[in-house]
């Protein structure tokens, strides 16, 4: 640590734009703070090791023992502190979970977010697959719950990131589960919000059983768009884009100078904002109602991580540029599951945090 006298000297020098002190003056100020060169040089070169540092073997040994002791002690106390903090948060979480419960009522959820100054337009959630046997079922149920809460809170877009991409392979089943969950929240299909479920390179899924789009007698005009993301939409997408661009460049269709940030942005955003058209036949039919669709916001406003620490875990990098991130913290104190469980209070805390509000006890 630099003593206050020396730092005052250096500050004065900075203010005069480095004119006041000469190079040797500064060096003489610095010299006492520099570590012994011998202390550092043992690392890069192994040969020099023996000759230089064996001057004070006992002192070095004692020093390292003291450091080891301090290290152990610090970690002991730190561990205790962390455990206490975890317990405190776990208790707090339970209380919140009791106070704020959705009771499967969209009105209640809307009331919880009513006073917030701002809501994200695009919410993104990182979920992780657990290791139990029914992991997929649990995951799908979590997704369905999240969709229901998001729709109830009035957030139009929800993207779900799950690393392995397992969800993408069972979209029809997922659609069914979400619809069932929505009906347990909203009641009959006419009162449910319209669900658009898709993944990059996939079209919007529509169940086959009959025309389930009663647009005339639909009393709920909300739409919730659910986007499924996986690790392949991250770096792999850039690899694919680069491959295509390289091929084009090799064929002389484009020069590398044409690759601008706008182009990359347009291409990368395309994937997550525009579901691919189902088929050529139905695309004509589809265009009529897809015209009315507002283009999706490709950059999420809020990213919720249900887990003990904030790790993006392969989340598509391009879009998180300005995304606010919120980690619900370690609420799985029992140490058996990977990743925290998805709870309504965590979801709500994220929204409150996003709006810059504090959570209160009592509604």
């Amino acid at each position: 640590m630099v003593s206050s006298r020396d730092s005052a000297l250096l500050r004065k020098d900075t203010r005069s734009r480095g004119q006041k002190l000469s190079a040797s003056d500064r060096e003489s100020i610095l010299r006492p703070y520099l570590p012994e060169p011998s202390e550092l040089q043992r690392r890069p070169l192994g040969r020099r090791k023996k000759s230089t540092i064996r001057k004070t073997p006992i002192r070095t040994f004692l020093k390292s023992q003291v450091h080891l002791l301090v290290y152990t002690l610090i970690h002991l106390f730190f561990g205790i502190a962390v455990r206490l903090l975890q317990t405190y948060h776990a208790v707090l979480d339970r209380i919140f979970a009791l106070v704020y419960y959705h009771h499967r009522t969209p009105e209640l959820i809307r009331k919880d977010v009513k006073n917030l100054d701002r809501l994200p337009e695009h919410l993104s959630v990182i979920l992780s697959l657990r290791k139990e046997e029914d992991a997929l079922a649990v995951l799908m149920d979590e997704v369905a719950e999240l969709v229901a809460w998001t729709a109830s809170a009035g957030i139009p877009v929800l993207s779900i990131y799950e690393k392995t991409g397992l969800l993408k392979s069972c979209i029809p089943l997922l659609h069914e589960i979400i619809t069932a969950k929505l009906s347990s929240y909203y009641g009959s299909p006419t009162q449910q919000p319209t669900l658009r479920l898709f993944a990059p390179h996939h079209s919007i899924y529509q169940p086959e059983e009959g025309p389930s789009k009663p647009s005339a007698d639909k009393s709920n005009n909300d739409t919730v768009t659910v986007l499924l993301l996986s690790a392949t939409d991250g770096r792999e997408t850039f690899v694919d884009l680069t491959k295509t661009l390289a091929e084009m460049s090799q064929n002389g269709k484009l020069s590398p100078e044409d690759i601008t940030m706008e182009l990359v942005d347009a291409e990368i955003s395309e994937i997550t904002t525009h579901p691919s058209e189902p088929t050529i036949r139905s695309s004509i039919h589809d265009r009529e109602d897809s015209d009315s669709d507002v283009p999706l916001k490709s950059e999420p406003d809020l990213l919720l991580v249900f887990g003990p620490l904030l790790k993006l875990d392969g989340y598509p990098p391009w879009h998180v540029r300005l995304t606010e991130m919120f980690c619900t913290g370690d609420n799985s104190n029992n140490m058996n599951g990977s990743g925290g469980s998805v709870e309504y209070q965590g979801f709500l805390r994220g929204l409150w945090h996003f709006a810059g509000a504090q959570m209160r006890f009592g509604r």
Partner: protein
Amino acid sequence: MSTSMHLNRLRKWFLASPPIEFAISRIRELLVGAIKQGPVPRHIAFVMDGNRRFARTHGIETVEGHNLGFEALARILEVCYRSGVKVVTIYAFSIENFKRSKFEVDALMEMARVKLAQMAQHGEILDRYGAKVRVLGRLDLLRPDVLAAVNQAVDMTSNNGDCVLNICFPYTSRDEITGAVRDTVAEYSKPLRSIGSPPPGSRTPFSESHIALNIRAQSQNTKGEDTNSDLDSTSESSTQGEDGPAPRRDTSKVYESGSSFSSSTTLHLGANPDGSNMKTVAAGKLMYPSPETITRQTLTSHLFTKDCPPLDLLIRTSGVERLSDFMLWQCHEETEIVFLDVLWPEFDLWHFLPVLLGWQRRVSNMRKNPDAEGNFDGTPEISEEDTDKSR
């Protein structure tokens, strides 16, 4: 009000008195030495946020705030390098920051120039301690005199190797990624030699004509144009292999191949093993390296941070909880992101210590039982660290 001011003064006086100062610096040394005993992150990134707000709340000029921020940086760098961190990356200036007031931009540039020039005067010390300075970003946006200082400092330290300080100077991550894509494309567009054979069909999740359209329009294209361009894109990609679905295909088919698509894309990490490495265009034309050999590693090796170890820890101060276009590519996998509610000029070992301890705790836990939470693909960086330590 006045009592608190007096108390504050007293506190400052007390802390600045020589014996206390000595004791604190001893304690710091002890703590840093203690941290060194455990696993230490090899690469830490800092977003130095809060200088302006610090200046505003303390009633000093913005420029002064930046100066204090520089002092905080010096403190933290000392802690990092002494405790064994190899690479520190700092976000000094974003490309977006050029939009700030000219006065502030000029002051920041001046500060950078002065500091870098001063550093260059102490070349001998830097050589002795093996510190290496690199400036990442769009150097072409800098003023000539600043650029000269940057080049001088970078050149002088380029042969040192132990500790690295990456200064992201006019930098945004999107710009970096775009640059990596561009450089990769440029590299793959250099012909190898001229032999001929027809181009093999390849997986193109991005339609070429679409990209061409985007270049022309640089904006959201309308649906009508989209279907027009579809025709030639489908005819082009009709020879596609089974491993990749075309972007526009029958829905049900895409669903079926959904899983195989994702697995095939994730598994092709290494370079293709055999003759498909070389791609040739039409007969008698030039021969190019096959774009199919582009992997995530290819792109990573074209980033500014190509020879740095993976980012272990990213710390942002001032309580703003977003990345603001910093290290997007580097930090979106295994990096632990920490947002601290402290302004950068106040940031010191005492705020940094809990973060480091938490990291050490998790890493040592992970090492004890590698199957536990959060550890997905056996952290390779830890094993390397082990060998580091045993040396």
